[in-house]
């Protein structure tokens, strides 16, 4: 097996529907099948929590505990990164926030980003191109974060300064020095955010050029131009009056949108068919993974929830071929085992029962 980035063991305790679960892995793609409600997505969610943030469902710590016990929960994983193995443990006691330990030492959540690169595609993202811009911004920031773990700190810094500024605006505070101090922070973090988002789009673009893929090329761009630190500072100061009338910051990187064009048809993604929109998303995730492999020498872990059901047999086979060529440990879920026939022995197969029981094959 390849020595790339992969989980070699995952243990769950009182996490979502799982009282106790354990999967032993060898780095091959993981195909999980079972009926609705068996807890397949919960497994993927547990893996997603090994990267910074609130995971693929954006859930609060208290929502992750198994009910009705609500005893708190624990995720323990062994992550192989090249020749090294890291022990990662996440847990939350009832009523408390989650804690992270890496190799038996307490660590901040952001430290996970430097260790594990994890990308995901979930059914709720099917509406990404037609829903409000916030979802696309979040998707874009996850792309940027995958290339640059420090992107998360810039986003947090920007949002914190903006929340402070918004409070001043709502309170009709008129101390210009206080505004300038906050706007300076927003401009510094905002310029970093703009640059890393743009950089991520360029890398994705390069990874799509000439790639051997059966999935359509998505041409990505930003809805607004980069202003840089100085330009953002000027903009925020100039807009202060209007912002005060609105009670919030109306312009800045927090309002940017991601624009996607279905390459071969030269058509906005939002106007493409549902199937084409899904294919574009898969294409982007695969391009992101190829770009990361080029950067880091190892493909990221992919979490593809219910992805196989939406693809015809030809595209499904192409997806499995591309994942195997990437050398990525892709976790995929589906209701029927037939969906993963094309993967065969190239993957590890996990069967889940309606009562949460789990069986590993291969």
């Amino acid at each position, binding site marked *: 097996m390849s020595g790339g980035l992969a989980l070699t063991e995952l243990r769950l305790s009182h996490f979502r529907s799982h009282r106790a679960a354990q999967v032993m892995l060898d780095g091959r793609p993981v195909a999980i099948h079972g009926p609705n409600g068996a807890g397949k997505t919960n497994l993927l969610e547990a893996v997603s929590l090994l990267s910074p943030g609130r995971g693929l469902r954006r859930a609060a710590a208290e929502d992750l505990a198994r009910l009705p016990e609500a005893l708190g929960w624990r995720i323990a994983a062994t992550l192989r990164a090249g020749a090294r193995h890291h022990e990662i443990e996440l847990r939350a006691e009832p009523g408390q926030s989650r804690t992270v330990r890496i190799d038996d030492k307490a660590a901040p959540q952001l430290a996970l980003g430097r260790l594990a690169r994890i990308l995901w595609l979930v059914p709720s993202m099917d509406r990404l191109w037609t829903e409000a811009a916030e979802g696309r911004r979040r998707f874009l920031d996850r792309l940027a974060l995958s290339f640059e773990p420090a992107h998360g700190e810039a986003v947090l810094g920007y949002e914190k300064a903006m929340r*402070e500024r918004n409070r001043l605006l709502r309170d009709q505070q008129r101390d210009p020095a206080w505004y300038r101090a906050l706007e300076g922070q927003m401009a510094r973090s905002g310029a970093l955010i703009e640059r890393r988002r743009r950089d991520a789009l360029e890398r994705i673009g390069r990874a799509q050029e000439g790639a051997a893929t059966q999935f359509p090329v998505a041409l990505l761009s930003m809805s607004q131009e980069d202003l840089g630190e100085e330009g953002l500072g000027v903009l925020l100061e100039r807009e202060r009056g209007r912002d005060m009338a609105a009670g919030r910051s109306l312009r800045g990187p927090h309002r940017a949108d991601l624009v996607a064009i279905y390459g071969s048809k030269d058509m906005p993604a939002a106007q493409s068919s549902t199937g084409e929109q899904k294919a574009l998303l898969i294409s982007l995730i695969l391009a992101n993974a190829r770009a990361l492999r080029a950067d880091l020498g190892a493909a990221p872990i992919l979490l593809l929830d219910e992805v196989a059901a939406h693809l015809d047999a030809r595209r499904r086979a192409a997806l499995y071929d591309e994942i195997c060529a990437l050398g990525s440990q892709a976790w995929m879920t589906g209701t029927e085992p037939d969906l993963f026939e094309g993967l065969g022995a190239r993957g590890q197969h996990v069967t889940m029962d309606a009562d949460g029981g789990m069986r590993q094959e291969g």
Partner: protein
Amino acid sequence: MSDAATDIDDLIALMARLPGLGPRSARRAVLHLVKKRSILMKPLAEQMGRVAATARECTLCGNISGTELCAICASEARANGELCVVEDVSDLWAMERSGIFKGRYHVLGGTLSALDAVGPDELRIPRLVARLAPEGVREVILALGATVDGQTTAHYIAEQIEPHGIELTSLAQGVPIGGELDYLDDGTITAALNARRAF
């Protein structure tokens, strides 16, 4: 009549409210005190009573003191023209432990935070500006945290001090003494590299 067991429970509950102590460590501390009633608990209680009666904020810098002016502000030797601005008394104590700083302090009592309704007036910033001329301050050293709130406060203060033509500096950010590069985050390494100096 108070019951001894209830009093001890109340004491444990009070101790558990101290920073760094939980119910378990509070129980251990109280048990230790009860076992050493005469040599530790009584002197501790008496000392706490005295401090509770006399402790107050220094009217000039905001340090905790037993007198109107703290020992640092009362000392002419510390009026060397350097004024170090810190967020909290614990930061002042940390600076004093190092023994390297010979000037005076100004304790803000926190950082600017609109969300927590902490504004310039709550932070003794006007009092800081008012001290500059009478005390002949030549340099203000901003020793604030490298957080969003800390840096917002630093920029705010810098703007207030700028018109006074006083030198403004801030503590360096970078590799801690005894630290290994491998364990530093990207932001700290960037700051350290930007602030590099001739060897």
